[in-house]
């Protein structure tokens, strides 16, 4: 199994998990947003799946670019440009390196450049940030992901739609953090980090 295949497996698996949890994500977003994060992501990953299913990818950069462009043009809302930017940024980085830590760090940079959220603002960054750090240290485990996700619950949102709720956003898990947790759980499961 070569390197590209593992990454493809990851995305395919991520797609399945998102579709399966569409309603859960909508539910999380209903509590503190506008209830569409599941629908948005579902629309996006289905478009990704359609594009990459059966396609041959010799270069990681082409794979990530296709994923990013599909997400950008299908998801809409806030999460579309964010996930899209992550993968487009990874596509750029993949021209230079195949290292998961380097690629994922580029992805995080893409998210932060686009959304300008700092850790602690109750967004997907609160999962991406600790996860990428752990990958860099070679110490990513499921519990790192779970803890990061759980930490968003007690945060007060100051970015995105949930910020209009102020204090009332506290007590709910952030939907984008949840979809990102799925992203990294499937990353672990697909063995992308193993070698």
């Amino acid at each position, binding site marked *: 199994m070569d390197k590209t295949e593992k990454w493809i497996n990851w995305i395919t698996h991520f797609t399945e998990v998102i579709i399966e949890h569409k309603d859960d994500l909508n539910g999380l977003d209903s509590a503190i947003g506008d*209830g569409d994060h599941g629908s948005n992501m579902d629309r996006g990953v289905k478009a990704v799946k359609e594009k990459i299913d059966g396609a041959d990818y010799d270069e990681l950069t082409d794979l990530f670019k296709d994923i990013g462009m599909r997400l950008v*043009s299908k998801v809409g*809302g*806030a999460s*579309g*440009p964010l996930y899209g930017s992550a993968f487009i940024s990874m596509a750029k980085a993949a021209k230079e390196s195949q290292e998961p830590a380097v690629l994922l760090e580029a992805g995080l940079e893409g998210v932060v450049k686009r959304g300008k959220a700092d850790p602690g603002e109750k967004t997907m960054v609160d999962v991406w940030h600790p996860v990428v750090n752990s990958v860099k240290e070679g110490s990513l485990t499921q519990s790192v992901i779970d803890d990061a996700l759980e930490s968003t619950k007690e945060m007060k949102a*100051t970015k995105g739609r949930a*910020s209009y709720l102020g204090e009332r956003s506290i007590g709910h898990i952030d939907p984008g953090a949840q979809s990102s947790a799925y992203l990294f759980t499937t990353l672990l499961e697909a063995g992308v980090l193993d070698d």
Partner: protein
Amino acid sequence: MKKIINQPDQVVDDMLNGLAYAYDTIVSRVPGTTVIVRNLESDNRVGLISGGGSGHEPSHAGFVGKGMLSAAVAGQVFTSPTPDQILEGIKAADEGKGVFMIVKNYTGDVMNFDMAKELAELEDIDVDFVVVDDDIAVEDSTFTAGRRGVAGTVFMHKILGAAADAGASLQDIKTLAEKVNNSVYSIGLALSPATNPEVGKPGFELEENEIEFGIGIHGEPGYSRETLKPSKELAEEFVRKLKKEIGWTSGDRFAVLVNGMGATPLMEQFVFMNDLKTLLAGDEKLDLVFKKVGDYMTAIDMAGVSLTLLKIEDDAWIDHLNSPVEVIGW
């Protein structure tokens, strides 16, 4: 959900086709996109586009035409359009002098329009934009995604539209847009929630006698829930909030927009305007040099109204507001 629709996920497509058909003398739909463009020959003007999630009709396609927008880009209901669609809007609007985008301040909109700008620049189209954030119900941006763009956007469409069609440059329009955005203030209230057809149930709940002040045009939470009051008292609350924010003195000139949220009949909007007359023109002695009442920036079938005040900083703005247009919804 009781609505005159077919498949809920087809609602935007059906609506755009119906609109483009009904008003084929003014606009067309760019095939394969969610872009509505005006039927005007290219004439070296700066292109002016707006857009955002659907559900705010007549915004934004209703303001496409001579004297206002060159094109509008529609997203799914209450969801920002994607960069590829916005890029199509930019291309449809481009007459070689650059394209200016009117964006409402929502995280999704800002990011998607921003990406579209990057894509357009790859194709050598000059793009600039303003992010309208007129909703004074929201705390400042240290704690939130910032003030939301609401009905004040309609004044932005009109003023920039008049300027663009009169030959203003991209840089002139940018400067004008920033000035207008710094002078426009809105606040809204809801009597009953909107139902997004793709969701199928109301976005929030209000008791039989309850209203919410400060609500957003997607049903975002406001700042207080209270029992329904007479129109006069609702108007007083709006005026109190706006006065605190703007700090006007008597004689100041304003344009005013009383905007219906979608399900509130004109009867109530005119009653509300009558109370505002007493407060703004009477008590506060403001000079209301331009006035408008009706449904301009709606939230599907939400019942409620918003009030927008634009402080006139330049006499040209009044001319721009009054200049004739050929659009569906002004």
